[in-house]
């Protein structure tokens, strides 16, 4: 299960609406628990795939280094990432899977239909290695 605060949940959906028809992206900061992550903050990131921003996203590693540093200073860890699928379902794609390398972390996808946030789903990247990795859909619990 992925637990997120209401503020985080609303923020990532709003981000997808703001960047429509392009994909938005960002990192999720929180704390690990035995049954999943409790996410306390969402950090917006620039989508560096300006060549194909309507159907691709990428966060620059240099920005990730800064996000990780910020997380440490706040006593949090990077527990996952989020991005939007403009006019596509909130389901992971083969591209999402091929480019997913943060095992044990959550990948949250929001479908944005005609500029309005629709479904938001979360997929945990399970498995121990690149060869055994798989996405498993998980419940999202929105709390205060």
């Amino acid at each position, binding site marked *: 299960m992925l637990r997120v605060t209401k503020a985080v949940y609303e923020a990532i959906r709003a981000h997808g609406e703001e960047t429509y028809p392009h994909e938005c992206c960002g990192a999720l900061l929180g704390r690990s628990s035995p049954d999943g992550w409790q996410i306390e903050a969402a950090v917006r990131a620039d989508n560096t795939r300006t060549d194909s921003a309507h159907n691709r996203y990428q966060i620059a590693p240099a920005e990730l280094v800064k996000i990780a540093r910020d997380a440490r200073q706040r006593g949090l860890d990077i527990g996952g990432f989020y991005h939007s699928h403009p006019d596509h379902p909130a389901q992971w794609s083969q591209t999402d899977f091929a480019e997913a390398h943060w095992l044990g972390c959550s990948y949250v996808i929001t479908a944005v239909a005609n500029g*309005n946030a629709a479904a938001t789903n979360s997929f945990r990247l399970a498995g121990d290695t690149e060869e055994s990795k798989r996405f498993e859909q998980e419940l999202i619990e929105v709390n205060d």
Partner: protein
Amino acid sequence: MTIFIPTPLRTYTADKDAVEVNAATIAAALDELTRAHPDLRMHLFTSEGKLRAFVNIYLNDEDVRYLPEKDATKVSSTDTLSIIPSIAGGCPPRGRMQIQHRIPETQ
């Protein structure tokens, strides 16, 4: 120097988010890290010993791949190394799968 470990790899460092090593170069630092935590090696390097394509190593705020001396760059005790797996993705490139939404009725 300090090597920061990303969340997916802490399984192999006994949940440590940072590991201290004494090394003269980046390569030596990574070697010391993987000697102390051998299970990390396969997650960072290919069987040929090359850094996996999706693994980024940053010396402070610099991508090691773009340093003139790459992993032979000398380091000091106050430097930090960050291991950062890449993050990217996106929806299918072709055959846009329109999600269902209401279409305004027309007369």
